[in-house]
């Protein structure tokens, strides 16, 4: 892409009331070299700063004092403007930097043939250049001054290397790595935390342990069920045998059958009564008279205190809207604020609904004596059960007395097996139940459904963390590939820059041997700790020239006092090399730089000369042409 600066315009900026600088020829093409004479104090540095501010977009961060520093002295104008006209390939863009001296704000407008509807209230840079231009440091490399030249050789600076990184956009590869970091972060946030090899192992171990516990409990359940079937079968066989023995005596057989019938009825009744009692327990006022008495006292107190009769908070809010209180006092702003603050301490409408429900429930419930009756009935049934058991025992003893001792053993065995079945079924119930209200103390270590849930959760956690871990490892590997590509490309570019820059230095520095050894952040010179100011400029321009020459972007070069500190021989060399380095060079000079530098351009073609001059405290004016430029001499 070819970038050309076509000109700029000042409006109410320091000493520039209204002034245009046009860098184009008749056909709209730019001069290869434009020398603009700007005596000290006419705004050379200001011009450089404003061009940089438009290209980098940095003015949006300016403080109010920064903006107002551009206001013309002793003037009451409210706004200043700096307009920059740039051509990107065939497209011409107008950038306006507005400086509002009243508010201290700076803002941009852009217009181009590509955009419809005139000016757009923002700084719009062509897409391919956005990553490059948004870097303020990069802009300084082609909107250049002596300080920037020194930076390239300063051992504490990374200026030279950064210039390569930004111009060849290798820094974009860092941003690609940042995208990968963001992806890793997103994956890990969706999982259970930061994925490391250790955390994957931990989660894997947890999942395996949960699976083992679940399988062990399942096996326990199956074994228990199998054992219960066997015990029940054994008990049934013993019972049958027991009954067979008793049936050998017809009298005992009849008595036994009657007792067994009574036992069945008794057991049914016990079950029903226990269920009734369980329901009673859910209403504790039925169990404890004292509890019932205290609840009724609470209900009476709520009644006496008239709590809550109305919506207190709403009352105060309504009161705050009135102009006069119930007591006749006026309600002003202060009183209104106090009432509203205090209203927060009272119950609101939603809280009152709850309190009223409690009050109603306390008033309406009645204590029942069902519990006492059921408890008494259960005791009777249990006594009856004991009697039946005694009756059956008596039959067994009678049989034993008649010589059949086996019946006693069978009776004891049936009893023992019966207890085993009760214990086993209780155990099985706790092992497999989902009812965690009736069965307390159950956890994933002793209950199959809970163990299954814990295993499922552990599996999900493991899958999440291992998925994120795998992704992290892959992304880290990809980042390493990209890092190596970036370093390799940078190394190649640095090698090329050193070779080509040294060729240019040879042309610039005639009386000394100066060459670049390597680029290590800054330019490292071969066998020298330092060079003269003029040689510094020569090396810096040779490097900048090579840097831009190799790029796929064709930048203009705008430079402030390019040869001021140099001796005459370096000035001449710089003057000869600058027009060769760039297709467009805009040079801001003082009259002191004519000798040895500006005068070298007089013999060249395609050079524009402009002189911006103005007496102290007077607006600056622009005078085109070489004759005036040549004869103009700044006052000392």
């Amino acid at each position, binding site marked *: 892409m070819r970038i050309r600066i076509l000109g700029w315009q000042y409006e109410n900026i320091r000493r520039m009331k209204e002034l245009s600088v046009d860098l184009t020829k008749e056909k709209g093409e730019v001069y290869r070299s434009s020398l603009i004479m700007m005596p000290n104090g006419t705004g050379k540095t200001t011009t450089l700063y404003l061009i940089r501010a438009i290209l980098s977009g940095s003015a949006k961060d300016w403080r109010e004092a920064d903006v107002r520093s551009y206001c013309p002295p002793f003037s009451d104008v409210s706004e200043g403007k700096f307009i920059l006209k740039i051509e990107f390939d065939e497209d011409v863009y107008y950038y306006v930097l507005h400086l509002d001296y009243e508010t201290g704000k700076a803002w941009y407008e852009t217009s181009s043939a590509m955009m419809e509807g005139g000016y757009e209230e923002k700084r719009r840079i062509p*897409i*391919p250049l*956005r*990553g490059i231009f948004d870097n303020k440091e990069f802009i300084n490399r082609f909107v250049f001054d002596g300080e920037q030249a020194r930076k390239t050789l300063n051992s504490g600076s990374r200026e030279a290397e950064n210039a390569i990184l930004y111009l*060849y*956009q*290798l820094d*974009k*590869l860092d941003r*690609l790595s940042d*995208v*990968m970091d*963001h*992806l890793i972060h997103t994956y890990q946030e969706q999982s259970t935390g930061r994925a490391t*090899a250790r955390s*994957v*192992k931990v989660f*894997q171990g947890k999942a395996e342990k949960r699976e083992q516990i679940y399988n062990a409990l399942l096996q326990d359940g199956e074994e228990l069920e199998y054992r219960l079937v066997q015990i029940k079968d054994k008990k049934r066989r013993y019972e049958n045998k027991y009954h067979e023995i008793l049936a050998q005596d017809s009298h005992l057989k009849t008595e036994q059958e009657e007792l067994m019938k009574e036992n069945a009825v008794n057991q049914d009744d016990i079950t029903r009564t226990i269920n009734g009692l369980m329901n009673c327990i859910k209403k504790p006022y039925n169990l404890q008279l004292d509890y019932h008495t205290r609840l009724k006292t609470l209900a009476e107190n709520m009644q006496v205190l008239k709590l809550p009769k109305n919506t207190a908070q709403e009352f105060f809010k309504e009161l705050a809207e009135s102009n006069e209180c119930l007591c006749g006092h006026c309600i002003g702003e202060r009183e209104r604020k106090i009432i509203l603050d205090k209203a927060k301490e009272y119950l609101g409408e939603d809280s009152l609904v709850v309190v009223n429900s409690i009050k109603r429930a306390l008033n309406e419930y009645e204590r029942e004596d069902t519990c006492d009756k059921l408890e008494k009935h259960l005791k009777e049934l249990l006594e009856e059960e004991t009697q039946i058991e005694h009756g059956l025992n008596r039959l067994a003893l009678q049989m034993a007395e008649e010589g059949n001792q086996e019946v006693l053993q069978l009776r004891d065995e049936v009893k023992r097996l019966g207890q085993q079945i009760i214990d086993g079924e209780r155990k099985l119930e706790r092992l497999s139940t989902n009812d965690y209200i009736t069965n307390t103390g159950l956890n994933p270590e002793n209950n199959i459904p809970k163990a299954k849930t814990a295993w499922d959760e552990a599996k999900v956690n493991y899958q999440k963390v291992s998925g994120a*871990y*795998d*992704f992290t*490892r*892959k*992304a880290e*590997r*990809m980042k390493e*590939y*990209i890092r*190596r*590509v*970036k370093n*390799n*490309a940078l190394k*190649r*570019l640095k090698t*090329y820059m050193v070779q080509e820059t040294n060729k240019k230095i040879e042309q610039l520095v005639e009386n000394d041997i100066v060459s670049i050894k390597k680029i290590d952040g800054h330019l490292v010179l071969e066998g020298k700790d330092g060079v003269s100011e003029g040689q510094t400029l020569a090396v810096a321009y040779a490097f900048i020239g090579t840097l831009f020459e*190799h*790029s*796929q972007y064709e930048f203009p070069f705008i430079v402030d006092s390019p040869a001021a500190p140099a001796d005459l021989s370096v000035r001449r060399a710089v003057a000869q090399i600058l027009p060769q380095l760039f297709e467009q060079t805009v040079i801001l000079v003082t009259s002191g730089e004519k000798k040895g530098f500006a005068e070298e351009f007089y013999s060249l073609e395609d050079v524009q000369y402009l002189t911006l001059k103005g007496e102290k405290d007077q607006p600056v004016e622009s005078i085109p042409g070489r004759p005036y430029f040549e004869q103009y001499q700044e006052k000392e």
Partner: protein
Amino acid sequence: MGLNWELQDAVREETDSMQETEGFKLRFTKLIENYMDGMGSEAEIADIIDLIELTGDEYED
């Protein structure tokens, strides 16, 4: 716009030395080209990352 030749060579050297599938190498090269041209979505990058094959000793560190 395409890559400058130093970057092209660096990408080629890297893909030649990496132990990845040809599919990954192609997508990786294309990703660098696209990204330098201001294109390339997170979804595309995630897809390419997934093409990397991990070795068996990933959990041994």
